[in-house]
């Protein structure tokens, strides 16, 4: 059941656009990792019981610590005008900040209902910022499902941070890594840049909201994640320049990503290669084991995190997998230009979703592995199809040389498990 799609132009893959039921998380889900990354920030969703239930279901079942997120649930009396929504919000924020005096930055996060009733969270954020200054800075962004899909929530959050960044007075180029990475991976990258003599290197988001990185005309930035379109544009508006590169997944992607910075910062080619040689070689060696399991296996990506294109490129080129369809909720052509070229023309790309039709294709093609969201994984497994739940790909350290094999192993494990089980 191959869908008919227009022939691809040039070397890029063919693209199928679909419109139907989308089985994706909304942008609120990003809070699940963002609240762990920025350790003095709190995320307050202004939304409905559904929003609270989503966060709890997507995250709560995994986290038993006191979370740094909550929901201000809109009630009937807020809608009926019996209560002033802004006064109510102020009251909720007061109660929250009294409970968590350690919080330095509060994000008011817009949701579908708050967008539809046009609750102005940016005005609320300014008002509350004044009220709680200098202790707490209050910002806002929208993670609503009518505007954002899953990882776009992080994009909206980081884009909201950009206007807050101090102006850089640097007279020589400075590097910024953009996109939240696990601390261990971030530290690995910082060591590489240090050894190459590139510095200072800043990261967005920072681990502490009180240490926002400066930005200006001398800022060069590398995107660590492929879903940061709005953040990149906001940084460019402040004069920063994006360094185009493959994303740092796998040995090849990491090499090219680091290389893009090295070249821009005039690092001597021999020195660059000397700095990365050991880790790159180690990564290639570590990939041999998962490659034995994955080579020649077919893989189908349901749209989810926007990581699909770079991951398909990694799995195809470094592990010999065969991507049947690479679905993505949104295709950012400019940021993925190198990725699409590397992925090659014989792969079917799909943007948007009609989940029923897409599942028809999965059932017809019976891929060796399907990457999908939590709602679809067990129903596919019950049909005898191996799956990898995509949420793990945004929750685990998967970037960089030393995580390349871990990333591959995430795909190999479901297949290995299938071989092991005798029940």
């Amino acid at each position, binding site marked *: 059941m191959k869908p008919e799609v227009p022939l691809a132009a040039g070397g890029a893959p063919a693209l199928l656009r679909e419109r139907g039921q989308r089985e994706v998380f909304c942008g609120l889900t990003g809070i699940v990792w963002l609240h762990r990354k920025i350790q003095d920030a709190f995320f307050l969703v202004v939304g409905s019981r559904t929003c609270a239930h989503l966060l709890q279901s997507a995250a709560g079942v995994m986290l038993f610590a006191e979370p740094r997120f909550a929901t201000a649930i*809109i009630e009937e009396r807020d809608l009926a005008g019996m209560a002033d929504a802004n006064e109510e919000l102020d009251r909720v924020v007061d109660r929250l900040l009294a409970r968590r005096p350690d919080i330095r930055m509060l994000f008011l996060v817009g949701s579908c209902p708050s967008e539809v009733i046009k609750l102005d969270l940016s005005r609320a954020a300014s008002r509350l910022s004044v009220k709680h200054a200098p202790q707490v800075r209050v910002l806002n962004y929208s993670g609503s499902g009518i505007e954002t899909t899953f990882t776009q929530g992080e994009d909206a959050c980081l884009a909201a941070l950009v206007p807050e960044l101090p102006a850089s007075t640097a007279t020589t180029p400075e590097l910024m890594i953009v996109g939240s990475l696990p601390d261990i991976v971030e530290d690995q990258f910082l060591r590489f840049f240090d050894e190459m003599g590139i510095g200072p290197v800043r990261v967005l988001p920072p681990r502490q909201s009180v240490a926002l990185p400066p930005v200006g005309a001398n800022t060069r930035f590398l995107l660590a994640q492929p879903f940061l379109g709005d953040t990149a544009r906001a940084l460019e508006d402040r004069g920063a320049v994006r360094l185009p590169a493959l994303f740092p997944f796998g040995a090849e992607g990491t090499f090219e990503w680091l290389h893009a910075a090295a070249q821009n910062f005039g690092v001597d080619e021999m020195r660059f290669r000397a700095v990365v040689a050991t880790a790159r070689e180690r990564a290639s060696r570590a990939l041999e084991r998962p490659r034995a399991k994955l080579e020649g296996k077919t893989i189908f990506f349901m749209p989810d995190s926007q990581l699909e294109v770079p991951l398909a490129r990694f799995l195809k080129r470094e592990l010999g997998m065969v991507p049947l369809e690479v679905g993505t909720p949104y295709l950012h052509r400019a940021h993925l230009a190198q990725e699409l070229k590397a992925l090659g023309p014989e792969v079917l790309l799909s943007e948007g979703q009609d989940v029923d039709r897409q599942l028809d294709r999965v059932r017809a093609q019976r891929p060796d592995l399907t990457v999908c969201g939590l709602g679809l994984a067990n129903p596919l497994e019950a049909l005898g199809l191996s799956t990898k739940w995509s949420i793990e790909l945004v929750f685990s350290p998967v970037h960089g040389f030393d995580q390349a094999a871990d990333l591959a192993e995430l795909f190999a494990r479901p297949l290995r498990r299938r071989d092991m089980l005798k029940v």
Partner: protein
Amino acid sequence: MQLTLWTYEGPPHVGAMRVATAMEGVHYVLHAPQGDTYADLLFTMIERRGKRPPVTYTTFEARDLGGDTAQLFQTAAREAYDRYRPQAMLVGASCTAELIQDDPAGLAEAMRLPVPVIPLELPSYQRRENWGASETLHALVRALAKRDVVRTPREGRRPRANILGPTALGFRHRDNLVEVKGLLAALGVDLHLVAPLGASPSDIATIGEADFNILLYPEIGDTTARFLERQFKQPVVRTVPLGHGATCDFIREVAEVAGVDPAAALGVGSRMPWWSRSVDSTYLTSKRVFVFGEANHAIAAARVARDELGFEVCGLGGYNREFARELRAAAAEHGVEPLITDDYLEVEAAITAAQPELVLGTQMERMIAKKLKLPCAVISAPVHVQDFPARHSPLMGFEGANVIFDSWVHPLVMGLEEHLLTMFRDDFEFHDAAGPSHLGAGHASHAGVESVPETPAANDVQGWLPDAERELLKIPFFVRGKARRNTEAFAAERGITAISVETLYEAKAHHAR
């Protein structure tokens, strides 16, 4: 607006999904923005269902709002019908779609689908999950039940009952149902149908053919039971068979309504009475338990705690206001203030203040208990993946009473160990700080919670002198909270500001009387 860290119930459309997913041949078309599809994972991940819930979401986006979201709804409904060919369809809106007022009911009616289409009006900003499930079951039964059924005379046949309430994603519904079916078999009562779990619309059509209804989960089936009582004159068995005593009451109630002999069914019995009477259980006497959960579960649990385990109920509450009246009555019977709230922070404060020795609650209270380092057993929804064990693990019926004994007693320190801890509290590996020895390292670390402050100033608020504070630490951790509370209450009553060792023992003597 309500500040919510954790929510006890989902929105009402999730309740509707629990009903639709429980049934066969039903499809639910939900007008909802993208992102609301997260609800599928409740069923596929938490309950480990191997099928997607029978739900089509319209998943509109911002750009659709300017255009025709009504058209989007009709397209989704048409495609869902063509693909799934259900016997009946449910249509409704989630919280966001409720605001844009597209009227799914009217839109669906205009489509003239060849099957019954049942509109659901579930106000998301007022109501919650259980109410949504209850309303959905009621709407289905009202729409589908054949009104003109004539029950065959009772003479010469066995009595027939419906069971109302079990759904998908229910707390132990699967296993409880097995037990209750067993009780009915032992009573010689035939099961006509279970609704909604496993029923199809054509089954529901015949619901009036049963002689009576068994209301297993009032939070889901009460409205429907009342409707059936009016419509078909079907009496309702209302005792929830949770615990040994309630199971016996349930058997007697069914026997009376059905006109059968309860003796055989009662004869099965559970091990609970003897396990509770055997001397090993003496140490359970008057342990203070805080009970919180879905109101009907909490009420039943409080009865078991007091009457069947010999605990003292020191707090009783529920999160669903629909059953506030019943909960207040039960709290009055136990002599405690009822706690009726769905505010997690309020529950946390109440448990902290009560200083119980055991918490019987939901997964939320499990988190609170973990934070306060109290033992806890889970007695009600909201559910967690661990609430769907592979093994048979009912809470209802006689086997349920056995399971309750094990699972509520297990988190506590065992009888003899309790004495040894008091006698030899400085043993380097068998001591207070190690926690119950059968629970492993994860449950340890009671140490440090209440170490003696080096500077007495740190404890000024409590008025504890250092000697008294050190003496308090010699009391094992599982009763220390109670001792501290009793002593402080005693001191406060007498206007004592500095608590000494003497005060501690005065208080002990006072409370012993």
